[in-house]
């Protein structure tokens, strides 16, 4: 299969993911807390609570210091006049092909976190699915959106 010129995301994406993961993964600390609330901390249960807490803490560290880097390393996107090609996934690797003639609309989105790093994400919707290229430089995101919508108009067909 012919390989189109793939692009990487901005390295600043790693920073954004570190922040968002550090908050999101905090929720896993609920597991040992709930366990302690139900079974108490006596004897045997104390060890389970502690080991759960340690596991969650390690997972939290990994989700901050390892996963963002690996996701960034594995993310690739390619756009040309015929299709959008997305490659992603650290453990489960997925490759998705979206013919441009199926693209219904393209958005750029920017939350406060992405905004503070001057990043934006590009969302591509077809009649069936929605895909996202996360964390591009905002100028680049706008250009990508422009590019996709121009190509999509050229490739226009009915559903």
């Amino acid at each position: 299969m012919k390989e189109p010129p793939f692009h990487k995301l901005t390295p600043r994406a790693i920073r954004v993911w570190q922040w968002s993961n550090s908050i999101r993964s905090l929720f896993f600390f609920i597991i040992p807390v709930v366990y302690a609330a139900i079974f108490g901390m006596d004897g045997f249960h104390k060890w389970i609570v502690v080991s759960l807490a340690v596991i969650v803490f390690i997972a939290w560290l990994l989700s901050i210091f390892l996963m963002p880097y690996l996701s960034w390393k594995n993310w690739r996107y390619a756009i040309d006049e015929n299709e959008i090609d997305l490659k992603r996934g650290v453990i489960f690797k997925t490759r998705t092909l979206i013919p441009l003639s199926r693209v219904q609309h393209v958005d750029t989105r920017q939350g406060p976190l992405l905004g503070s790093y001057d990043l934006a994400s590009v969302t591509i919707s077809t009649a069936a699915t929605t895909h996202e290229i996360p964390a591009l430089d905002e100028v680049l995101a706008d250009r990508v959106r422009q590019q996709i919508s121009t190509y999509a108009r050229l490739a226009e067909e009915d559903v």
Partner: protein
Amino acid sequence: MSDFKRQHPVAALSRAFGLIRGNIVTIIVFLFVGAQSESFSFLWWTLGGFAFLLIVGFANWWRFLYKVEDGLIHIKSGIFVRKNLYLTKDRIQVIDITAGIIQRIFGLVQLDIQTAGASSRAASIEAITRDRAEAINRLLRRKREDSGEEDNDGAEFEIEDDIKQTISLPNKELLIAASTSGSFGIALSVIGTVFSQIEPLISESQFYDYLYSILPSQTDTMFYIALIAGFIVFAWLLSFFGTLFNYGNFSLEIKEKEIVISRGIFEKKRSTVPFNRIQAIHISEGIIRQPLGYASIHLESAAGYGDDRGTGSILFFPLIKRKRILSLLDEVLPDYQKELAALKPPNRSLRRYIFRSTFLVTAVTAGVWWWFDLNVLMWIFPILAIIWGWLKYNDTALGWGDDILVLQSRNLSKSTAYIKKKRVQDASISQSPFQRYRNLCSVQVYVASGDRGKSFNVRDVELEDGLTVLEQIRIEGVNTTIDESLESETERQVIQLPGWA
């Protein structure tokens, strides 16, 4: 027709019943909570609730206005928040005139207007007289055919009711469809939910004692077995009659540009599917129906022509002999290539199929067997799971023709999907670490279906085949013909689809 009109007042009633039907579970729970309270009696709760719904229905009716003018329908609705809906005739895809139970009692009809937008809901006028519905239909439809902007060849001029062929479901097959319907499980869960709600009431009464005395059982075990058997029979009857009423009077009308599917004994349902909106054909052979040689056929259609939930899955034919599928499809959808060669997953993925379907069952069985010291017969479940895994492997295939993709797979029922390549919205291949090691991949293809999409998958095929599928979708986008080099090499195991002949 150029000023705003209300619907027939019966719409208030039909809306109230619609609300009841839509919230039936909530209402039942509510009623039983209410029944426990002392201050209000059960009767008051019921009457009050019904009065409330009638008021809501009435308000809805009062605030719903429609106007047809210059090929444009304008609907104002909403009790507090006013919503204005404008539909122009060239956006309107389908106008369906149907009649539910309430409409039929009063000799009225319901008019549904559907547009092409992927997310736009259908506009629906719930109760009007048939004459007026026909008038609206004429006003919104006639002109479009005159201008003929839908078809570029322009030469053909079709008459509204040009039915080329009508196919109906024989009674024998209707009965088989009803008795093997998959809604059995759903019926069982509904009964379970209702029963868990009313169980406290029953156990206080003498009902159990009564049952205990009439059932021919001597022990508690026997009693429970009889009770469970009773439940199953009841659920089966429910699903039997449910299917019978839903799919009775089934008929399929083939027209020049569209298919009209109508069904239902008490409540008539009609779906109109224009040929150019069909996204995929999907044939499903249920686990009970397959050994009997029967299957059902679904269509995936863009925009919500399917059910109220906004999926575009339409039952095209409820039950058909496998041998007759090809001739039926050839007649109705001749532009789909149905017979083609397909590739099976390689031998090395068999173990993955078996492992996937077996390991959970085996773990649970082992655990239960160990702790509760049950009969050795329990180990039949893992053995069944192995067979199931093998069946799944055996029924998985991935094929492609000039303009078509075929994905065959099995969960409980065996499903064969025919998808035009140009209808594919996106295609993905994915690999887990183990698949990467074995050079396998899973393929997922999305087509548009109603408001959302529908995906078809095959698992653990050769990575190379997955890449070929992607490449074909890519080439389809470029609008060139397929390279000869993509034709599959011959040393691979090729099966002939669909294999029903």
